[in-house]
């Protein structure tokens, strides 16, 4: 009896450790509001969507090249308005349904119908036609120079109409079907997402050695909001991989014998503070400029980020495609000039040092995500603002409610870190007046900027594209619609017991498809 019990116990332990070994344990800092890519811009949704769903094309490691994925090839009409995609005929959804051109047509039409905030990434669609089960004609009203790269974004993933209809308002919450390397099993908000291997997956992009299926049976994605807890969890071997190892401890991770740290390069991620320019406190460009030039970005990134970010003096990183060199020098840090601008704008220092105008204190409400470096970075900037007489009122929000709160109009300033691939993407994303109220939360409407962006977007050659986007960058920077702070470095930290983990730069989550990751 005793022997039997011992044997049973040993067998259970073995089974548990085997099951554990077949599960990839992924950790991240913040959860998503849901996983319907048509209804969100929030990056915590994007990683799971990229794992469960596929796009027509994949983004190569260089962040610029579109590789075949669900589309095996494509041609472009001479006027740049029509793309014809030839699709793979060996793809199926997790549900078993075969992927065809009808799914592509459905997905892009649905995005337009629900007025998804990222619909612009698909270009100005005129008509999408299924020529045959594996050929799609993608016709736009105007050329779109960024189309292929934008088609790699999670919002342009292909959905299964049957799944959408069946789940209704629970789509992206209780279920999600896709052709990706993983299949959605369950989601317990703020706790865990569980995925299982898509056994039929064989169509991974050529940037990976392994086209599929993935090497693990199961993926468990857990949310650990606290920096110290994530540090301890990775050091203790509780998780296999994370894109959210606390940046202030990255040097320790690099020295840890059990961890691998891979930096995503290239990587463009701007942390900025945006101004809602129709709110009284920040409607005056002099006030906005004063805030922007009242910082010391080099000091901030060194002291708060411990060197894991580069100070940003422009909205676009100088190494990004179509960066406008003419925008260098628009932001020149100068505390004395900042005070002078505020004086000129009529904000005079009160008895407590905070500026007052018409009886109102200059105390803008600032929304921030209550996660990772945002609270301490914002508090440090708050210190700079106090020195020039501005009292930032910080409101820290949970990541699951932040998108909803940001769509409101009852705050003056907000901050996020935005990943982008090129100058054009950021200009189109934020500064086109068609994007009001989200993501153009500034409520910025300028005909000249719109025209410059349109010119760049519809350009048929690189020179014109760069010219259009450069004009837009100059205009929006001179208006000080944002306060750029830093370009955040992006790392993927993994336990050495797994192999093949390489950091990808797409939209803040380094895992992407992860097809080469193996135990």
């Amino acid at each position: 009896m005793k022997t039997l019990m011992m044997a049973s116990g040993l067998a259970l332990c073995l089974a548990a450790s085997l099951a554990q070994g077949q599960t990839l344990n992924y950790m991240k800092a913040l959860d998503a509001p849901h996983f319907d890519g048509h209804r969100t811009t929030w990056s915590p949704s994007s990683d799971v969507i990229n794992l469960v769903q596929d796009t027509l094309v994949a983004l190569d490691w260089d962040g610029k090249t579109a590789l075949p994925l669900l589309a095996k090839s494509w041609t472009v009409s001479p006027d740049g308005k029509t793309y014809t995609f030839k699709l793979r005929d060996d793809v199926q959804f997790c549900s078993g349904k075969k992927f065809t051109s009808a799914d592509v047509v459905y997905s892009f039409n649905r995005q337009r119908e629900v007025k998804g905030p990222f619909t612009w990434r698909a270009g100005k669609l005129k008509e999408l036609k299924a020529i045959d089960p594996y050929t799609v004609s993608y016709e736009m009203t105007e050329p779109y120079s960024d189309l292929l790269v934008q088609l790699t974004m999670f919002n342009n993933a292909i959905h299964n109409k049957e799944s959408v209809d069946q789940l209704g308002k629970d789509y992206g919450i209780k279920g999600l079907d896709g052709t990706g390397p993983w299949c959605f099993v369950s989601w317990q908000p703020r706790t865990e997402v569980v995925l299982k291997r898509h056994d039929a997956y064989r169509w991974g992009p050529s940037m990976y050695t392994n086209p599929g299926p993935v090497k693990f049976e199961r993926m468990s994605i857990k949310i650990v909001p606290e920096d110290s807890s994530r540090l301890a969890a990775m050091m203790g071997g509780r998780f296999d991989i994370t894109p959210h190892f606390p940046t202030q401890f990255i040097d320790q991770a690099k020295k840890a014998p059990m961890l691998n740290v891979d930096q995503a390069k290239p990587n463009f991620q701007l942390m900025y503070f945006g101004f809602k320019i129709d709110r009284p406190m920040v409607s005056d460009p002099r006030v906005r400029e004063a805030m922007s030039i009242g910082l010391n970005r080099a000091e901030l990134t060194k002291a708060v980020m411990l060197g894991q970010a580069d100070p940003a003096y422009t909205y676009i990183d100088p190494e990004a495609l179509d960066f406008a060199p003419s925008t260098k020098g628009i932001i020149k840090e100068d505390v004395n000039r900042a005070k002078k601008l505020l004086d000129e704008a009529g904000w005079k220092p009160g008895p407590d040092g905070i500026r007052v105008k018409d009886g109102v204190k200059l105390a803008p409400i600032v929304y921030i995500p209550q996660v990772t470096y945002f609270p301490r970075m914002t508090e440090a900037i708050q210190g700079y603002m106090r020195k020039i007489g501005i009292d930032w009122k910080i409101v820290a929000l949970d990541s699951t409610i932040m998108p909803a709160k940001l769509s409101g109009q009852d705050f003056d300033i907000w901050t996020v870190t935005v990943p982008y691939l090129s100058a054009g993407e950021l200009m189109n994303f934020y500064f086109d007046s068609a994007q009001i109220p989200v993501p153009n939360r500034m409520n910025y409407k300028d005909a000249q900027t719109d025209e410059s962006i349109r010119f760049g977007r519809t350009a048929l050659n690189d020179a014109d594209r760069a010219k259009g986007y450069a004009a837009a960058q100059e205009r929006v920077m001179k208006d000080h619609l944002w306060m750029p702070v830093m370009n955040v470095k992006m790392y993927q930290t993994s336990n050495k017991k797994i192999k093949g983990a390489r950091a990808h730069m797409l939209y803040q989550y380094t895992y992407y498809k992860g097809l080469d990751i193996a135990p």
Partner: protein
Amino acid sequence: MSSPALTVSPSGIERRNSVLSRLARDKVALTAAVVLVTIALAALFAPLIAPYDPYYTDLSKPMQAPDGEHWFGTDNTGRDIFSRVLYGSRNTLVMALAGVLAGGALGGALGIASAFYRRLDPWIMRLVDIMLAFPAILIGLSVAAIVGPGIESVIIALVVSTVPDVARVARGSAIGIMGQEFMEAGRAVGVSNGALIWRYLTLNCISTISVFLTLRFGQVILVGSALGFLGMGAQPPEAELGMMAAQGRDFLFMAPHIATIPSLVILLIVLAANLLGDAVRDVLDPRLQQ
């Protein structure tokens, strides 16, 4: 004919002096009182004592260990921790005091009303039972969700969590006094209800309630600090001990002083309050005196 509860007789003054001298002879209580008074005075005179502006950031000196220039070191934004501890103690003590006093007044009123007006007793006690069912942290989170985080939200949460305990204690004490002969005598000679409640009941229950509140003070500080730790209390750049401890935990491995110093100050305040509260109870509690 004067009420026996109200006259401040020479024997009452003598009694107070005897209480103080008994407290003074208790070395532990004396030490606790000295610590508490020192912290309270330091907090009160923080604007005069603090060597630096508690809001002044200096990113050229982040996370400096304690030294001659910054006695408690600096935090992650270069702010002087000693100055912030002074101002933070202020906020912490104000929150606790407001919570205890307001909670004590409301709870005492409810308990005494419950004892005097017997028809109201079941209703008041059921209300108290409902309030007791909610943990203070939950109340704090709810209030913060409704009115927004801040010191006011913490005070409301502390008041709401203090009221039911005080109500029960006050009721128990008041019921005992209601059975005394002088209450019947007062009624018989036509003393008004207001006078009965205030001069006969309340003044006789005050010592029991006070003893309870002094014991409660330490707990209230802990709960208030916990709410501050969770982000419900003072908002940046305001200093508050619980919040400072929370901010420091991100840097526990590289600059432990940022979290540990405010935590130690909380420990000191709570320990002193508890020890003093115990001593005051030993001296003042009528049941122990009997």
